[in-house]
């Protein structure tokens, strides 16, 4: 809400803001609601958008999780009939697509949206309306990808959709069309988000916060956004070629027409390998915040963590063909990509050493967040080591398309990315909602997830090396093998593990529900944290900080709370979070102009799924979608992102400030 306001004291009742738009922009008056659904749907507030990103991602986590459990149920017994071969293909394709594009990426975006502006001491992102547009675009893309379940069957070519599986012969339903267009739309969301967050980090930092004083989470998000910026256009090209092939009769990947099927593989993995780091680096960032806080030590080797993150991002561009060692690239290419892939283990190893050294000798506080963070370090290391075995090309050709690969990437993505996200939930929940998640339930949640995930994915190493192919939809007792290497036994173990994992996730949802009903308010600084996002109320006011802090140190908040005694050289507490926030309130900035809510982001975003449906079913519908997009762009262009002061009721007092409640 664009208002001129003076911050109200903590805990003051939220009054409705007396604002009415007096001018119109384009055809519509600005939305002004500060409560109810309109205050969410038309919001441009990075915090509300962050929460909505999180909610949507969590929804898709549950969807993807149900798909995973169905896959495991089908493999739980010989000659099982839970799923048909066709539905099984759709299930694993959509499981991976959902988890990668609709859970981990949006959840990382949720954390980035919420915490990057807070960590750098900004009041919002650089382009608040583009932020809202990105969110609604993601929703539209997610709907398109999943709509196919109800319209003739979902995509079934595997998440990397190799030709000829992506072609009409092997995928006659519209599933692949929905998949390609839906991911195209989520790609737009990621690209706009990347531009927005990079500009935010570079341009909106609080005074004094140089790049090397930024929190590590923000740093690694910056690397991730650069990866998105440059990787998304590559998948855009690939998806366009695929859509043109399926919808307009081109033959880009049709071998019978003389095409080269490796074209898709290259384009997909040029995007796909940076994508791997896009998925895991945000979690690395989260635990790089969590480990120091609960070890009561600064992060060991901050510059090494930052630069190894950047190095991972850079080298990540030169390793894509290790996904294609079995495709006959030729000895030179295989050797080059093999060496590059081994090289990327170095900066990753640097990070693991840094985390270990951070914990070393610290006063460890084993909270639920700390459990998940340490879980990540251990499980990701296991996944990283099996990853190095893929870098060795001769060994990889034995492992390609077996369950060993499935084991590897679930250790890095579940044990790495998802454990990091859960560490983030437990660590930042009191910041976002003002209430702490239950620690006992959290630890139970952790242990069930650790046991579940190791039971599910651990045995896959064995059955993979024994030769069980990835994506095999059925197995028979007669051919399962004997003794320790009986495929049937280990498949059952994995299925039981997946159920334990499910119970673990359910405990988290129960924890969320219980916390939401609880009346217990979290302390202002429950973890004795170190970074700027804790230097404001929980949840933060709409303008984040009453007074923008001036930054002098890495871990600024810690340095404001603690100081070294000049005689004894002991670190002593000199101030509390409450003091610091109260001090900010007393010296609050006047004339805080926040960007105004807008109808245009959601209208613009709503045009894209219409275009997608039109491409699949009838071109006139696509034209309707395009008209929506063009009109929305004009409306957007003519509307200033921050309403001028004349757009609102005149100020109540002489000095131009108006007593307004914190809006939320």
């Amino acid at each position, binding site marked *: 809400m664009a208002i001129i306001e003076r911050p109200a004291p903590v805990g003051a009742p939220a009054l409705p803001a007396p604002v009415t738009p007096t001018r119109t922009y384009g055809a519509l008056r600005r939305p002004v609601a500060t409560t109810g659904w309109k205050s969410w749907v038309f919001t441009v507030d990075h915090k509300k958008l962050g929460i909505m990103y999180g909610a949507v991602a969590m929804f898709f986590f549950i969807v993807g999780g149900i798909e995973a459990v169905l896959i495991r149920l089908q493999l739980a017994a010989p000659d099982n009939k839970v799923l048909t071969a066709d539905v099984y293909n759709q299930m694993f394709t959509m499981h991976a697509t959902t988890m990668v594009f609709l859970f981990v990426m949006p959840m990382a975006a949720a954390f980035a949206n919420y915490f990057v502006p807070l960590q750098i001491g900004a009041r919002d992102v*650089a*382009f608040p*309306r*583009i932020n809202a*547009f990105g969110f609604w675009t993601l929703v539209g893309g997610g709907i398109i990808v999943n709509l196919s379940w109800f319209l003739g069957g979902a995509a079934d070519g595997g998440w990397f959709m190799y030709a000829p599986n992506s072609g009409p012969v092997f995928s006659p339903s519209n599933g692949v069309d929905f998949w390609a267009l839906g991911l195209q739309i989520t790609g*737009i969301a990621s*690209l*706009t988000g*990347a*531009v*927005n967050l*990079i*500009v935010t980090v*570079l*341009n*909106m*930092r609080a005074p004094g*916060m140089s790049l090397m004083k930024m929190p590590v989470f923000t740093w690694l998000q910056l690397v991730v956004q650069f990866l998105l*910026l*440059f*990787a*998304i*256009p*590559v998948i*855009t*090209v*690939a998806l*366009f*070629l695929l859509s*043109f092939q399926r919808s*307009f*009769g*081109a*033959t*880009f990947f049709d071998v019978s*027409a*003389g*095409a*080269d099927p490796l*074209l898709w593989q290259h*384009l997909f993995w*040029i995007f796909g390998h940076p994508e791997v780091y896009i998925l895991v680096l945000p979690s690395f960032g989260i635990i790089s915040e969590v480990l120091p806080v609960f070890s009561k030590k600064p992060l060991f080797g901050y510059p090494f963590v930052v630069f190894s993150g950047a190095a991972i991002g850079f080298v990540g561009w030169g390793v894509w063909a290790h996904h294609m060692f079995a495709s006959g690239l030729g000895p030179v290419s295989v050797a080059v990509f093999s060496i590059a892939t081994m090289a990327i283990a170095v900066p990753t190893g640097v990070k693991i050493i840094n985390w270990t050294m951070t914990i070393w000798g610290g006063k460890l506080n084993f909270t639920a967040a700390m459990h998940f963070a340490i879980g990540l370090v251990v499980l990701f290391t296991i996944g990283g080591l099996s990853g190095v075995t893929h870098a060795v090309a001769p060994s990889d050709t034995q492992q390609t398309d077996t369950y060993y690969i499935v084991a590897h990437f679930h250790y890095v993505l579940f044990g790495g990315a998802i454990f990091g996200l859960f560490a983030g939930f437990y660590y930042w929940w009191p910041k976002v909602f003002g209430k702490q998640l239950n620690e006992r339930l959290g630890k139970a949640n952790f242990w069930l997830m650790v046991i579940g995930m190791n039971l599910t994915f651990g045995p896959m190493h064995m059955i993979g090396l024994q030769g069980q192919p990835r994506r095999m939809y059925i197995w028979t007792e007669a051919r399962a093998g004997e003794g320790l290497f009986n495929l049937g036994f280990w498949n059952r173990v994995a299925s039981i593990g997946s159920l334990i994992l499910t119970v673990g996730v359910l405990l988290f949802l129960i924890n969320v529900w219980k916390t939401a009903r609880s009346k217990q308010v979290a302390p202002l600084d429950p973890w004795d944290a170190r970074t700027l996002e804790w230097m404001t109320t929980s949840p933060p006011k709409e303008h984040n900080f009453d007074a923008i802090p001036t930054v002098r140190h890495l871990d600024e908040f810690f340095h404001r709370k603690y100081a070294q005694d000049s005689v004894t050289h002991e670190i002593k507490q000199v101030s509390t979070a409450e003091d610091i926030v109260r001090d900010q309130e007393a010296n609050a900035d006047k004339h805080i102009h926040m960007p105004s809510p807008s109808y245009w982001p959601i209208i*613009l975003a709503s045009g894209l799924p219409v275009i997608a449906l039109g491409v699949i079913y009838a071109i006139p519908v696509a034209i309707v979608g395009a008209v929506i997009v063009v009109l929305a*762009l*004009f409306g*957007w*262009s*003519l*509307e*200033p*992102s*921050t309403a001028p002061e004349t757009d609102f009721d005149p100020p109540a007092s002489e000095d131009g400030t108006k007593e307004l409640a914190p809006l939320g």
Partner: protein
Amino acid sequence: MVDTAVHHAEYGHHTSTGLSNNKLGMWLFLGSECLLFGGLISTYMIYRGRVGEGPRPGNVFDIPFTSVSSFVLLMSSLTMVLAVAAAQKRDDRGTTLWLTVTGLLGATFVGGQVYEFTAMYNEGLGFTTSLFGSAFYTLTGFHGVHVTVGVIMLLSLVGIIKRSRVPGDKAEVVELVGLYWHFVDIVWIIIFTLVYLIPT
């Protein structure tokens, strides 16, 4: 997304780097576009020799004609830069004049492309005739769509300036559209050489 970045009404220049948010966003977007056109050009490079039963590149290209339209697009970069200079001098008449000229030159280029595509189609090169055809039309089509979007932005901007409805810094909005326009031009510099002048 182009338009959203271009017309985004953020103004005020007190930022950590001292640079405008909009301009930084635009350059990031253009950096990203390099990867998009790189992918399309590489696809064309792999498929340009796969003509199947259809015509070969050398048979359908009309180099003198395309040279003229390339020249038109190149000169539109000059008029664009004059529009930006006029906008920075707050010369609204000059700005709208040069923006209009740029838009018309761009429209001429698009018209030339439509004519070229029609001629090629009549010579037997359809979108689905061969891999060469599909890749060629996809690459040049993407570029053509970019030019068309640019023309719409230029002419809309003329109307918006005439009605004094520009949100934010007028000179910066013109400059941002200019950056996009020049980018479209440099992509064509590459396409003209790699696709048209260097034979298979």
